[in-house]
């Protein structure tokens, strides 16, 4: 494998299969995230989006197929090694360290994530707390944060690991429109700092607004890939997904 070149793939899934008992959650899936890209990942419930995230971040091992991060095979590595190579994720339901302060939980990612020479863990943590607008709650115990704050904290913890690739799982779900806009703004800043993003989201407004390309899954397989404009016109997508949820 050669190293990454400009415009090369940050993340590649090749023929990835994951079965749970008799159920095939992800079926021979190919997916690419290019350098400098925000890739939307959408599909109806049970399409395999979160399973794919679990595969990419090393929580599950694929039954077959390969996953590459900047050209390097990662599908056999434990989660913490994948994180240290530069892939971080957030959770659909935030999983904060409840007995820590907000700053301490960001510090976990900053200290144990990807090593970047010349940066200190506490500086990185401060920067991520600021980026996610959590300064006022910096020293608050995590259990006292509300949902929107916990989602931003989860994002801050992931960013503190200094990822090359960030997997964002439904960060807008359950937020009000103002909070959604604020979150999308944060993701734009993250992207502008050179991080590739794969973004799973049910809030169409958010994902269509920010994604360069959208990858649509249904029953664990790809049904469409294209720009937001292209996929929303794709009959297969309308049939599988948008047709069922679009309003009048």
């Amino acid at each position: 494998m050669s190293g990454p070149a400009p415009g090369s793939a940050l993340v590649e899934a090749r023929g990835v299969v994951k079965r749970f008992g008799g159920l095939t959650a992800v079926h021979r899936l190919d997916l690419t995230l290019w350098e400098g890209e925000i890739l939307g990942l959408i599909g109806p419930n049970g399409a395999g989006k979160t399973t794919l995230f679990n595969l990419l971040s090393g929580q599950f091992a694929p039954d077959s197929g390969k996953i590459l991060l900047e050209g390097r095979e990662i599908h056999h590595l434990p989660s913490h090694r994948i994180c240290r190579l530069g892939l971080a994720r957030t959770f659909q339901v935030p999983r904060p360290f409840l007995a820590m302060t907000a700053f301490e939980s960001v510090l976990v990612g900053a200290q144990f994530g990807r090593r970047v020479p010349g940066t200190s863990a506490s500086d990185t943590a401060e920067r991520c707390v600021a980026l996610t607008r959590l300064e006022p709650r910096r020293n608050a115990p995590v259990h006292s944060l509300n949902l929107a704050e916990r989602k931003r904290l989860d994002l801050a913890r992931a960013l503190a690991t200094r990822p090359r690739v960030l997997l964002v799982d439904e960060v807008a779900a359950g937020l009000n429109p103002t909070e959604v806009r604020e979150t999308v703004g944060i993701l734009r800043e993250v992207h502008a700092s050179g991080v590739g993003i794969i973004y799973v989201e049910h809030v169409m407004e958010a994902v269509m607004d920010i994604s360069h390309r959208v990858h649509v899954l249904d029953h664990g397989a790809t049904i469409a890939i294209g720009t937001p404009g292209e996929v929303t016109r794709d009959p297969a997508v309308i049939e599988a997904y948008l047709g069922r949820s679009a309003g009048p």
Partner: protein
Amino acid sequence: MVDLLSVLASGILVGTVYAYMAYGLGLIYGVLRVVNLAHGAFLTLGVYVTWWLNATFGMDPLVSILITVPLGFALGATVERTLVFRLRDSPPVTTLLLLFGVWLIVRNALYLIFGGADRSLLTSYSLESLAVGPLTLSIPRLIVSAFSLLGFVVLALMLKRTWSGLALRAVAQDREAAALSGVPVNRVWAVAFGIGSALAMSAGSLMSLFYSVTPEFGARFLLKSFCVVVLGGLTNIGGILVAGIGLGIAEDLTAFYIHTGYRDVVSFLVLTAALVMRRADSD
């Protein structure tokens, strides 16, 4: 009145040691979700190593802590790396039985090497006491209690102020989220098991000053450790300290006002009551 105060003071002194002795069990459970029945083995090894160093080299039990702490860490981390780690994905009862096996091996090895006779360790200060107002406090108990409190302070600072402490807390609170934040969970498990075992072995060093040395030492104090940990809230460092002191006082009150023979019944009763109340809480 003086009687009562003496009993309370002695209970507090013993209770701090109980808390120190038990904390490793709570730490290992908190980080690994494993009930470490080998805790009894490490407690017993601690008293034997201390007794042997004293009998052979005349080493003071308090000095032998410098040996039992690193030795306990190395042994504990090794048990985790070579045995517990292999059963990571098995049901909890498997690990429980494995660690029970470790304890049985250690206990019977000690019978084989040293026989079953009770031994005791005597130092120049073993029988000394200090008069504080109307109270007479045993010097070994004061020293041991002070060491235990010091151990607690060091441990609390380690957990709060060091990177290892942060990693231990992260893994205890959410193992998967910790791994996804880059925390090397495997290594943290070994470290937690090492620290827990180091605490148990050094507790053995301290307790050799006033308990007899027998291969059954661990059986008696494993149960009390359980009692303290369940009562104090498993991983709650302050709660465990309070629970240890509470058990120490309850035991001494029972021994003094009812009968010495009932001393060890207290921990059984408290453990039973605590479990029943927890059960009621969760219903």
